[in-house]
C-alpha cells in the first residue's frame, strides 16, 4: 500500500499544460551525470518563463522570478533523485512540471535505496509536522558543529521557507524496489 507524507494530490494532470523529462538509468559515474541536472533545471526554467509573456519591467521581473524558482526547485529534485535512487534497479528518473493559473506543480519519481528509506521518512515526518524556522536553525547549527556531515538537508527547507511551496511524498512498493514520488506545489502570486 502507498504511504503518503505531507500534501499529495492524485489525478490532476489532465487539467494542466505539462512537460515531462525522463532520464534513463545510466552506468556513467554520478559526477558526469550531475552536470545534466543544471542543464535540465535551467531548461525547465526557460520553458516555464515563456508562459509569462510581457515586456514591461513588472512582467520581466516576474519572468526572472519564475525562471529562477523553477530552476532552483527542479535542480534540487534532480539532485535528490540522483543521489538517493538505487542504481541497481535500473529505473529511470522522471521529472514533470505542470502549469496551472495559480501554481506550478513539480513531480519527480525515482527508486530509493532500501537502507535510506527509514531515515528519509523520519526526516519527512519532522519537516511536515515541526516548526520549519526552528528546524532550519537547528540543522545548520548542527551541520556547522559537525563538518563531515552528509547531505545538507536544506533543499526542502529552503523551498518551504523561501519559495512558500507545499510538499508531498508518496512511497510505493513495486516488483523489486520502493519508488518515491515527490510533489512540489509552487504558488504563483
Amino acid at each position, binding site marked *: 500500500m502507498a504511504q503518503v507524507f505531507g500534501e499529495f494530490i492524485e489525478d490532476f494532470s489532465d487539467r494542466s499544460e505539462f512537460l515531462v523529462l525522463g532520464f534513463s538509468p545510466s552506468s556513467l559515474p554520478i559526477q558526469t551525470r550531475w552536470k545534466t541536472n543544471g542543464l535540465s533545471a535551467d531548461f525547465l526554467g526557460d520553458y516555464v518563463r515563456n508562459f509569462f509573456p510581457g515586456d514591461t519591467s513588472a512582467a520581466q521581473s516576474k519572468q526572472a522570478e519564475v525562471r529562477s524558482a523553477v530552476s*532552483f526547485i527542479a535542480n534540487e529534485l534532480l539532485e535528490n533523485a540522483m543521489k538517493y535512487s538505487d542504481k541497481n534497479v535500473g529505473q529511470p528518473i522522471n521529472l514533470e512540471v505542470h502549469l496551472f493559473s495559480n501554481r506550478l506543480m513539480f513531480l519527480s519519481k525515482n527508486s530509493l535505496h532500501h537502507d535510506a528509506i527509514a531515515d528519509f521518512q523520519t526526516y519527512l515526518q519532522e519537516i511536515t509536522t515541526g516548526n520549519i524556522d526552528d528546524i532550519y536553525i537547528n540543522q545548520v547549527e548542527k551541520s*556547522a558543529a559537525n563538518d563531515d556531515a552528509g547531505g545538507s538537508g536544506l533543499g526542502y527547507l*529552503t523551498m518551504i521557507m523561501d519559495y512558500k511551496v507545499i510538499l508531498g511524498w508518496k512511497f510505493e512498493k513495486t516488483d523489486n524496489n520502493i519508488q518515491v514520488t515527490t510533489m512540489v506545489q509552487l504558488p504563483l502570486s
Partner: protein
Amino acid sequence: MEVLGDDYKVWYDQLNQCIYCQGSLRLAGTEEYAPIVKILEYAIEQLPQKITLNLCQLEFLNSSGINVLSKFVIKVRQKETINITVQGSETIPWQGKSIKNLQRLMPALKLEWS
C-alpha cells in the same frame, strides 16, 4: 586564493578582505565544495576585523552551497571579533529570497544590496 570551475569562480581578495563568489554553484555536496570551504576558512583564519562576502554575480546556488555559506557565517559569528557584510544583487531573484536567512544565523551580519 582562487577556485575556478567550468561555470563558477570563487576567490579571496586578501587586500580588501573580500570573498567573491561568481557564476553558478551547483556542486555535489561536501566533497566537491571542499576547495571553496578551504578559501572561506582561510579568510576566517586571518582574523580580519571585517570580511565582505560578495555574491553580486552569483547567479545560482544549490542547497549544498547554501549550507556552505550558512556554516561560514556561523563560524564567523563564533569568532566574535569579525564583522561581516554580505553584498547581494537585487536583480538575481534567489538572493532576495534566501540571503536574508544568513542574517538569522548572525543578526549582526550586515546586508548590502546593489
